[in-house]
């Protein structure tokens, strides 16, 4: 009799608690969707030929005049969509790697992907002299091979997060040395091209970039959503997850594979854009207050961050547009610091 009162109170509190978190996450997702749509209109509407927001929307639904439609559909929309998709891929990949490595500083860098793709791209540009497609393909292959090597070297009866981080740092350091060596030996024009690629840029992106990226995300993001169920259990420690019946190593490997593929897709679309993978999951997590990897909210945050960065990159100094990677670092970093400062002031850092 005495025990029923707390039990009932527990059950009621339980239901209330378990409903509150998803509701807030849903709200954040709704807000991010609106933000992404608004940014899309801004991205398409601004430039040397400004278009009013209403005309942008008209053109998007096929009701605009021919000049506006040309600017929107051929020049600006594919670039904006590439930014959106690549940002989403990087945000999701970042969330996966932060969860797998149990480290808020985790990103695709920890598995050496970025270093591998950079080394391959710089080699392609400075030594072979390949075109954009060759560079994109080379960077994907370089990244994938490096990721495979890091996983293999970190494997010892399964892969522990910290081993992955350490092996990744070692391999990345060597590859960065190779990049620097290649840059010091190359012709100055090649060095310039290589450094623009290394920063990450969305210049001249067209529909041929949008479709493959969209197709890849159409497969990879649903896969992420499915794999998240086990991933959030693994966050509690290998023993706890195994005791609950999770195949820990299989979950870790499949998540790493999807994370690497997402990074590869983004890198092929716009180069190794910095910090989106690092900051998007952290910002999303702070907005939702949710636990678990939060891959979907991180993807939406990544899309918003990349899109906003590209608008700023183009418009900040209209005469000399910046590569998007310059802005993502500054914008994402500033926003994260602002959020952290806000949390610290509220007394829960």
């Amino acid at each position, binding site marked *: 009799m005495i*025990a029923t009162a*707390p*039990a009932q*109170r*527990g*059950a009621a*509190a*339980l*239901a*209330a*608690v*378990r409903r*509150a*978190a998803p509701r807030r996450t849903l709200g954040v997702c709704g807000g991010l969707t609106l933000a992404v749509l608004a940014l899309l209109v801004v991205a398409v509407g601004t430039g040397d030929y400004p278009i009013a927001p209403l005309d942008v929307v008209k053109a998007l639904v096929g009701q605009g005049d021919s000049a506006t439609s040309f600017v929107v559909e051929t020049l600006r929309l594919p670039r904006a969509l590439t930014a959106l998709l690549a940002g989403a891929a990087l945000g999701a990949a970042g969330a996966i790697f932060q969860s797998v490595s*149990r480290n808020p500083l985790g990103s695709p860098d920890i598995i050496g992907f970025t270093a591998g793709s950079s080394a391959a791209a710089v080699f392609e540009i400075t030594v072979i002299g390949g075109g954009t497609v060759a560079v994109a393909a080379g960077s994907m292959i370089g990244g994938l091979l490096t990721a495979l090597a890091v996983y293999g070297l970190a494997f010892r009866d399964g892969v522990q997060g910290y081993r992955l981080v350490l092996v990744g740092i070692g391999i990345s350091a060597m590859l960065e040395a190779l990049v620097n060596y290649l840059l010091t030996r190359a012709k100055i024009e090649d060095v310039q091209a290589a450094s623009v690629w290394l920063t990450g840029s969305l210049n001249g992106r067209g529909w041929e970039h949008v479709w493959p990226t969209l197709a890849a995300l159409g497969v990879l993001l649903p896969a992420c959503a*499915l794999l998240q*169920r086990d991933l*959030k*259990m693994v*966050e*509690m*420690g290998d*023993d*706890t997850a*195994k*005791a*609950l*019946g*999770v*195949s820990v190593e299989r979950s870790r490997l499949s998540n790493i594979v999807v994370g690497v593929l997402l990074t590869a897709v983004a890198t092929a679309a716009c180069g190794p854009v910095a910090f989106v993978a690092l900051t998007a999951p952290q910002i999303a*997590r702070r907005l939702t*207050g*949710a*636990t*678990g990897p939060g891959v979907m909210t991180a993807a939406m945050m990544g899309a918003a961050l990349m899109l906003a960065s590209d608008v700023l990159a183009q418009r900040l100094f209209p005469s000399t547009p910046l590569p998007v990677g310059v802005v993502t670092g500054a914008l994402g970093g500033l926003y994260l610091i602002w959020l952290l400062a806000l949390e610290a002031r509220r007394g829960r850092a």
Partner: protein
Amino acid sequence: MTRLLGERLTLSYDDRTVAADLDVTIPDGSFTVVVGPNACGKSTMLRALARMIKPREGQVLLDGHAITSLPSKEVARRLGLLPQSSIAPDAITVADLVARGRYPHQGLLRQWSPRDEEAVSAAMAATRVGDLADRHVDELSGGQRQRVWLAMALAQETPLLLLDEPTTFLDITHQIEVLDLCAELHEDQGRTLVAVLHDLNHACRYATHLIAMREGAIVAEGDPRTIVDADLVEAVFGLRCRVVDDPETGTPLVVPAARRRAGAASSSS
């Protein structure tokens, strides 16, 4: 036929063999406590029984089947483990953490159900963490946190529950609280419990079946009232002591021998 047993287990980490040719049987319905000096292999044996490590030789049988031959989720519906250390995800609430114990009962198509809700609130009531439901796990005290992890293991609703040093890092009050809770679970819910404990007196008081280990082998096992005496303690721990009756429960109480001062007359028992 017992539900959980290990046959001729050889357990090792890399090259270091912890136990060789070890047979162990967990009596059904018992509160089994495993004791022994540091590094005697007691936690390793428990981890092998919970399929956390793979024996180099021999096998663990659960309900007559090799535990490795059963699907992982199937095992998790029969056998639970509270490991020595778990990581509470950032900002997770008590209710959400305990709810994760329902994982083995859920699937892609079978998500959260009223049955899960019941199991979680029953587990929280049993461990008296119901009032903490909306608190963040990282702001709880050590004793509260251990009760929450225990609640998660309980929500798993397994007839067998293994606990790896559940009282480590807790002060004496919380140690007794957790052990009382275990005894309740054993008596009221009829679960079979296996715990590794450091404190021999706690083991004697709570165990219905005691397993004493030394250097990877079982030295003695049985009802603590019949097997624990000064000779056994000396043989297992190398500690000279007297064993008296616990004034509270009548179970064996180990009183270590006092340090002999130089020149003082020896008081051999």
